[in-house]
C-alpha cells in the first residue's frame, strides 16, 4: 500500500548511510606533541571543564594528559596516570615510548588511537587522553568519574516479594547486575553506539545457546538502521525497532527490573540495555507478557495464578466498563435489570448533563489530576493528589454536576488500569478505553463489541520480531497456553516457551527444539 512505507519499519536490507554530525576530521595525529594538543583542544572547542596537564622534562614537553574534569575522576588520573609518568620521567630522564607508557600506567582499560576524530570522541566520552612527544599515537584511558544514581528499588514495578534492585542509568552497573545473576559463559554481550551526537552506548545481551539466532540477527540489523542525532532514553530505541509504527501497543517490553530481564534471557529472548536509561528493552514481546509479574513466580503457583487472573480481569474492566456503562445507560437500558436501572436513574435525576458528557467530564478531570499529580513535588503529592481528588469529587457530586455512580466507575477504571504490569501497556489501554467509550456512546452495546473486535483485529495484525503479539492464543501454542492464564508450577515448567522459538526448548538443555512456533 502507498502509506505502508510511512507506517511500517523498513523491510529492505539496504543499510542506511548515516550522516556524520561531528565536524572533527579524520586525520592522523601530528608527531609534534604541541600540535597534537592544539588540534585536540581546537577540535573539542577548548571547553571550560577541559584539563590539559603537561609533563615536562628539561623544559621540553614529554607528555600531556587531557581530560574533561566533569567526566573523568581527577584523583584517579593523578594516581594512575600522572604520578607514574612523573616518576618515570624523573627516574629515566629520557623520552617515553607508548610501550613504556603502558607499563607505567596502573589503569587497566586503555586503547591506542592514531586518528584525531576518534581521539576527540574518546575525550568527550569520558576518557583521559595521553599524548607523547614524537609519537603519532595517543593513549585513551578510561577512568570514569561522574555522578550516578545508586541501585534502588524499581519505582514503576514494585513487588511485595522478590529482589529489590532495579536498573539505574549507568550501563555498566546494569550489565554487572545481570552478570552477577547469570554466571553462564554462553551469555553474549555485544556493545554498540547509537546517536550521532549523544553516542549512547547500548548492549545486546542474550544466551548464545538458547536465543534464536534469527532474532538476534534481526535485533542487530534494526539497531544498525537507527539514524538519529540523540538517544536520551530506551523509548527512542523501542520506537525505532518496533515492527509497526502506527499502533498504540508496545511491541517491545521495557522494564526496570533486573530479575525480569534475566528471566527473559533465560527464556531465549534478547535484552537491549541502553546507557542513561533505567528502562531496558526485551524482545520479542507478546501481549501476554505484560500481564506477568516476577512476583507470580516467587509466590506459590496458586497465588501467582490468582494474581494473574485478577490482573487480566482488572484490565478488561478498566478498558470496557466505561463503554458498557455508557451504552447501557444511554442507549440500551433494557439490558440492565430493573433494580439497577432504578438505582442509576435515581442517582442521575439532579445531573444536568447527558451520561456521555458527565462521564467525559469526570474522566477529563481525573486525567488532569493524574497528569498533575505526577509533577507535584513529592512532599505535597499525597495531600494534593488524594485530598484534591476526594474534595473535588465530593464537591462535584454535591452540587449535582456528576453522579456518584459515574465517579465510582471512573475511579475504579483508573485504578484498574494499573493492574497491567507495564507502564507502556497501561498507557495504551488508557487510550483504547476512549475508543470503546466513543463506540458505546454512539452505537451502544453493539458499538462496544464491534470496537472491541476492531481493537483485537489490530492486535492480531501485530508482530514483535516475527512473533505474533497475541501468542500463545493466536496462533494457539498449546504447551505455552498453559502458562498464560495460570502460573505453571516450577516442577512442571521444564520447557522454555516455544513462542520465542528458543534453540533449546528444554530448560536444562537436554534436547534441541525445532524452530516452528
Amino acid at each position, binding site marked *: 500500500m502507498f502509506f505502508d512505507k510511512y507506517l511500517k519499519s523498513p523491510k529492505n536490507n539496504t543499510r542506511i548511510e548515516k550522516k556524520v554530525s561531528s565536524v572533527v576530521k579524520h586525520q592522523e595525529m601530528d608527531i609534534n606533541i604541541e600540535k597534537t594538543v592544539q588540534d585536540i583542544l581546537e577540535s573539542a572547542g577548548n571547553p571550560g571543564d577541559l584539563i590539559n596537564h603537561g609533563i615536562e622534562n628539561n623544559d621540553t614537553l614529554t607528555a600531556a594528559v587531557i581530560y574533561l574534569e566533569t567526566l573523568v575522576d581527577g584523583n584517579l588520573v593523578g594516581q594512575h596516570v600522572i604520578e607514574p609518568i612523573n616518576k618515570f620521567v624523573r627516574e629515566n630522564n629520557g623520552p617515553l615510548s607508548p610501550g613504556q607508557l603502558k607499563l607505567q600506567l596502573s589503569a587497566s582499560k586503555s586503547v591506542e588511537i592514531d586518528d584525531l576524530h576518534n581521539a576527540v570522541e574518546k575525550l568527550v566520552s569520558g576518557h583521559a587522553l595521553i599524548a607523547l612527544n614524537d609519537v603519532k599515537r595517543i593513549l585513551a584511558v578510561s577512568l570514569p568519574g561522574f555522578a550516578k544514581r545508586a541501585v534502588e528499588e524499581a519505582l514503576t514495578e514494585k513487588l511485595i516479594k522478590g529482589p529489590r534492585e532495579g536498573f539505574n542509568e549507568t550501563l555498566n552497573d546494569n550489565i554487572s547486575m545481570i552478570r552477577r545473576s547469570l554466571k553462564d559463559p554462553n551469555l553474549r554481550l555485544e556493545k554498540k553506539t547509537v546517536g550521532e551526537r549523544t553516542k549512547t552506548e547500548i548492549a545486546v545481551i542474550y544466551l548464545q545457546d538458547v536465543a534464536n539466532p534469527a532474532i538476534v540477527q*534481526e535485533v542487530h540489523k534494526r539497531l544498525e538502521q537507527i539514524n538519529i542525532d540523540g538517544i536520551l532514553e530506551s523509548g527512542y530505541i523501542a520506537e525505532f525497532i518496533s515492527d509497526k509504527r502506527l499502533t498504540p501497543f508496545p511491541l517491545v517490553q521495557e522494564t526496570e527490573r533486573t530479575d525480569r530481564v534475566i528471566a527473559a534471557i533465560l527464556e531465549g529472548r534478547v535484552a537491549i540495555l541502553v546507557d542513561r536509561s533505567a528502562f531496558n528493552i526485551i524482545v520479542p514481546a507478546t501481549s501476554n507478557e505484560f500481564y506477568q509479574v516476577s512476583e507470580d513466580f516467587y509466590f506459590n503457583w496458586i497465588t501467582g495464578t490468582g494474581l494473574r487472573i485478577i490482573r487480566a480481569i482488572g484490565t478488561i474492566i478498566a478498558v470496557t466498563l466505561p463503554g458498557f456503562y455508557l451504552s447501557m445507560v444511554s442507549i440500551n437500558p433494557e439490558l440492565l435489570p430493573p433494580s439497577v436501572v432504578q438505582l442509576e436513574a435515581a442517582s442521575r435525576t439532579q445531573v444536568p448533563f447527558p451520561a456521555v458528557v458527565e462521564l467525559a467530564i469526570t474522566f477529563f478531570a481525573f486525567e488532569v489530576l493524574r497528569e498533575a499529580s505526577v509533577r507535584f513535588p513529592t512532599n505535597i503529592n499525597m495531600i494534593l493528589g488524594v485530598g484534591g481528588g476526594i474534595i473535588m469529587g465530593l464537591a462535584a457530586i454535591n452540587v449535582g454536576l456528576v453522579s456518584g455512580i459515574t465517579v465510582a466507575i471512573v475511579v475504579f477504571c483508573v485504578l484498574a488500569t494499573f493492574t497491567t504490569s507495564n507502564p507502556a501497556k497501561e498507557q495504551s489501554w488508557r487510550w483504547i478505553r476512549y475508543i470503546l467509550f466513543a463506540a458505546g456512546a454512539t452505537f*451502544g452495546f453493539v*458499538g462496544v463489541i464491534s470496537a472491541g*473486535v476492531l481493537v483485537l483485529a489490530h492486535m*492480531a495484525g501485530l508482530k514483535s520480531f*516475527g512473533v505474533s503479539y497475541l501468542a500463545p492464543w493466536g*496462533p494457539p501454542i498449546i504447551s505455552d497456553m498453559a502458562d498464560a492464564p495460570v502460573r505453571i508450577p516450577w516442577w512442571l515448567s521444564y520447557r522454555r516457551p516455544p513462542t520465542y522459538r528458543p534453540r533449546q526448548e528444554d530448560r536444562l538443555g537436554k534436547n534441541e527444539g525445532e524452530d516452528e512456533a
Partner: protein
Amino acid sequence: MLQEKTGIGPGLLFMVLYTGLFGYGVMQSPYVAARYMGNNGYWGFFLAFILAVGLIVLLHVLGKKFPQKSIIQYLPDVCGIIPGKILGSLYLLFIIFEITWTSSLIVQQSETYFLFRTPTSVLMLLYLGISAYIAHQGIEGITRLAAFVFPVTFVLIVLSVFFSFQNFELDNIRPIFFIDGAKIPRGTVQMFYPFFALSTVLMIHPYLTDKQQGLKTMLGAALLSFVIIFLVIISAIGNYSAPGVLRYGWPVIEVTRKANLPFLLQTFGLFFTASWLTLTLTATGLFYYVLAEGSAQLLSVLNYKWFTLILFPVIYFVMMLLFSGVIEVHYAFTYYRLIGFVLTLGLPFFVWILSVIKNTG
C-alpha cells in the same frame, strides 16, 4: 525484517473455519429447520453434515492436487483460461452474496434488539468497515483473531446453549422418525447453508503449512460447529416447537434468553449475542479477505489490501440494494441457499472431475 510468515497451521485453520461455520450458520438454523421440515427439522441438518463430510474430502483432495494454488489460480489450468476466469468470477460473486447476506443478518439483528433508531445505512457502514479492517490484516491476522476469540466465545456459547435447555419439552421435537415425503431432502438442501463457509478453503488452503492435517482439521471444525448448531436447533424446537419457532424473527436469541443469570444480567442471550457478533464479524473479515485476494488473483493486479478498499463501495452498494427493497435483488436472494448449495458442492466436484479427466494438478 524477519521473513513474514504467510502460512497458517492446522490450529489456526480449525479456528477460522469454526468461526465461519458457526457464525454464519447458527442464527437462522432453527428457523430454516422448522420452516422446511417442521418438528423433526434437525434431521435435515444431520444429513447436510453428511454431505459436508463429502465436500470436505473433496476440498482435501483438491488441496492435495493443487497444494500451492488457490481455486482462482488453478481454475484456468483445469478449465481453460476464459471458462476458468468465468467460474472464478462466479465463485467471487457467490462470496459477495455471502458477505451481503450475513452482514444484512447482523444489521437486522442489531436493529431489532439494540439500535432501532440508528439508520440501516450507518450500521452497514460500521459492520462493513470493521470487516474490511479485519480483512486488511491478511490471512494471518484473521486466523489469529479467530484463535484469540475462540476460547471465550466458545465457553459463552456452550453455556448459553446448555442453559437454554431448562424449558425443553421432548414432545416438541416429536415425531422423531416421521418422514413426510420429500420434506427432509428438500430441507437438507436448505440446511446446507452453514457449510457454505467451507468454500473459503478453496482460497486459503495454499496457506496451510501442514497439509497432511487438512482433512482432520476441516472435519474437526465442521463437526464442532455441527454439534453446537444441532443442539441449538434441538433446543429451539424443543422449547417452542416448530410453529413456535416460526413466530420469532430471531428464535436463537429468544432461546438463549431463556438462560437466566439473576441479578447480574437479565439473560445469557446477551453473552450469546456478543459472542455471535464477534464470530460473525471475524468470519465476514475472512470472506472479505477471500474476496479481495481472489479479485487480486483473478485480475492479476495490485494486492488484496488494495482490493479491500476497492471492493468496499461495491459490497456496500449490493447491501443497500438488498435493504432498499429492490425487488429483483430480494428475488435473487430468496434463492441464496439453493444457489449456494449448488455452487459449494458443485464447483469443487466439477473441478475435481475435470482435473481427473484432464490429468492436471
